[in-house]
């Protein structure tokens, strides 16, 4: 049996279903991210696990116990908030020890535990400071330590890095992951940042309009999206309109140029218009490498993004991007140049519409 289990969970606000048909099993020690755009229901689902929202239907079970109607202060679930939510009237040490004091742990246990937590978040000796004396990153570290100090059975993180600047975000997410793995705590991480979700998680739950679009390992989610929404939302994706030419041979036509897909064209008819997707990084210049598909395009724009260069090309009505790694000796085409691009049959995904 899974450690955390959500079964047929639904949450309605009036006539609006914020979350529906939500089923998920999370194993002990796993870090699962809820990824999706604003309003997709990821925070509502997290709040139902925390006990701040009651599900309209369905159940929430942790370690075999049904906690659906258990109040939040009886669930033994730690939570980290986007806005840190440190108690301004308490020092860092008092904040971290708050849960332990509520649990009526003796002072001789609280002090070493607080010290242990301060060491875990690399802030030893800062226990006497007040929250307003700390930077945003430090405050969020303290919030994490506070949520972990009382040894909760599940850790919930609600967009914990959103209020921080980019550099701190990257370093802190690495710390969160390493602390989570060190403690082996079952964790649910809510984010709208795909990079965060992909880099941190054992599994990612991609959500849209209150339901799950796809659940899978980051590699699977990125490389094998099963719906158009997932393909569009996770990473940059080129979507091209194509026409089915041969179902058995998996051949399609894009603006008069024939291409081949390695994926079955299930249920498609010859002549039918479909959407296909290709990741920008899977497209190369034919002059550099030769793959099964070759197309002629015109260069429309070149954007330098640091480690990669993104080239916008056009063929007929379809405009799409290709990415190439930056290096000092890279010879880039000029705007308006005709270039031949190439990609494998595996890179061409035929998308079904989201539910």
């Amino acid at each position, binding site marked *: 049996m899974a450690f955390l289990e959500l079964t047929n969970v639904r949450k309605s606000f009036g006539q609006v279903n914020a979350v529906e048909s939500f089923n998920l099993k999370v194993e002990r020690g796993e870090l699962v991210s809820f990824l999706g755009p604003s309003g997709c229901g990821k925070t509502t689902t997290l709040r139902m696990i925390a006990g*701040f929202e009651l599900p309209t239907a369905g159940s929430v079970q942790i370690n075999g116990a049904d906690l659906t109607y258990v109040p939040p*202060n009886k669930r033994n679930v730690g939570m980290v*908030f986007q806005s840190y939510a440190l108690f301004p009237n308490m020092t860092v040490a008092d904040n971290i020890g708050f849960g332990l004091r*509520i649990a009526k742990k003796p002072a001789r246990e609280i002090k070493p535990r607080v010290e242990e937590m301060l060491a875990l978040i690399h802030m030893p000796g800062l226990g006497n400071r007040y*929250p307003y004396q700390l930077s945003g990153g430090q405050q969020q570290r303290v919030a994490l330590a*506070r*949520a972990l100090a009382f040894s909760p059975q599940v850790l*919930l993180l609600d967009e914990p890095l959103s209020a921080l600047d980019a550099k701190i975000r990257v370093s802190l997410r690495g710390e969160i992951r390493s602390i989570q793995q060190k403690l082996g705590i079952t964790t649910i991480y809510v984010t709208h940042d795909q990079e965060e979700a992909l880099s941190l998680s054992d599994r990612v739950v991609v959500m849209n309009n209150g339901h799950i679009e796809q659940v899978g390992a980051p590699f699977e989610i990125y490389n094998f999206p099963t719906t158009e929404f997932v393909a569009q939302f996770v990473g940059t994706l080129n979507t091209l309109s194509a026409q089915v030419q041969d179902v058995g041979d998996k051949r399609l036509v894009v603006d008069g140029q024939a291409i081949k897909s390695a994926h079955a064209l299930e249920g498609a008819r010859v002549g039918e218009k479909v959407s296909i997707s290709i990741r920008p990084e899977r497209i190369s210049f034919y002059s550099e490498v030769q793959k099964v598909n070759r197309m002629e395009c015109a260069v429309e724009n070149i954007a330098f993004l640091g480690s990669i260069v993104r080239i916008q090309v056009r063929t007929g009505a379809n405009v799409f991007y290709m990415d190439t790694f930056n290096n000092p000796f890279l010879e880039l085409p000029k705007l308006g140049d005709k270039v031949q691009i190439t990609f494998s049959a595996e890179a061409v995904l035929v998308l079904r519409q989201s539910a």
Partner: protein
Amino acid sequence: MKKTNFWAWLWIVLGAVYFFLPLYGTLDFSLREQRGILSLLAYQNVLNDPHFRNSFAFSATMAAATIVIGLLLIVPTAYWVHLRLPQARPIVEFITLLPFVVPAIVLVFGFIRIYSGPPLALTNSAETTNILLMFGYIVVALPYTYRSVDAGLRAIDVRTLTEAAQSLGAGWFTVLFRIIFPNLRVALLSSAFLTFAIVVGEFTLANLLNRPAFGPYMVLLGQDRAYEPAALSIMSFALTWAAIGLIQWFSRGAQGQGQLAGTR
């Protein structure tokens, strides 16, 4: 620029003269009890009067009770409205403004009519009348107390702090008394000083409920003596200003902290 400054200062000076001149007149008059010289005799007479001490002690005690009971009633209410009933906020705000619309005399006659007979005959003894008077004071001070608490609650992220405390195992009582009350320190102090100033100077409720409060004492003194009421006015004025000064002082301390706090 200079022209603007001149007019601005002129209006400030005129306003200050309009305000301070009568005050100066009262102060000057209060010092002239001894013919031909300035003295503090009127102040001495007031301070040596046992009625002054008793009535002030009574009002101060009533003010303390009003502050404690009022805050215990208003803070949880305002907190709950912020947390769970934000749609009810306009209604609650309207109710808290009623003491401005309904005069104290209407309130006290209502009290006398309802609480002079069974089932709640509170006016039958001094102790229960004091309780009635205290609740009357709570109503009179409500617009100020509620606004002060409401402003304090708006300045902190009530919902997230509550949820953070709950996720750490805290119940409602702990959330309220260990998280919300301490973080409303400045708002509560402001409210307390305002309530103190209101209660100490209040006349109508205490007079009609026949309690030996400071407000009726001041009026009574004004009927019998010439210089002492002026001295009392100055003392009362100083007390009010001291309360306002303390509010300012505490608020100034909190502003610095508020700018640095990271809970928003």
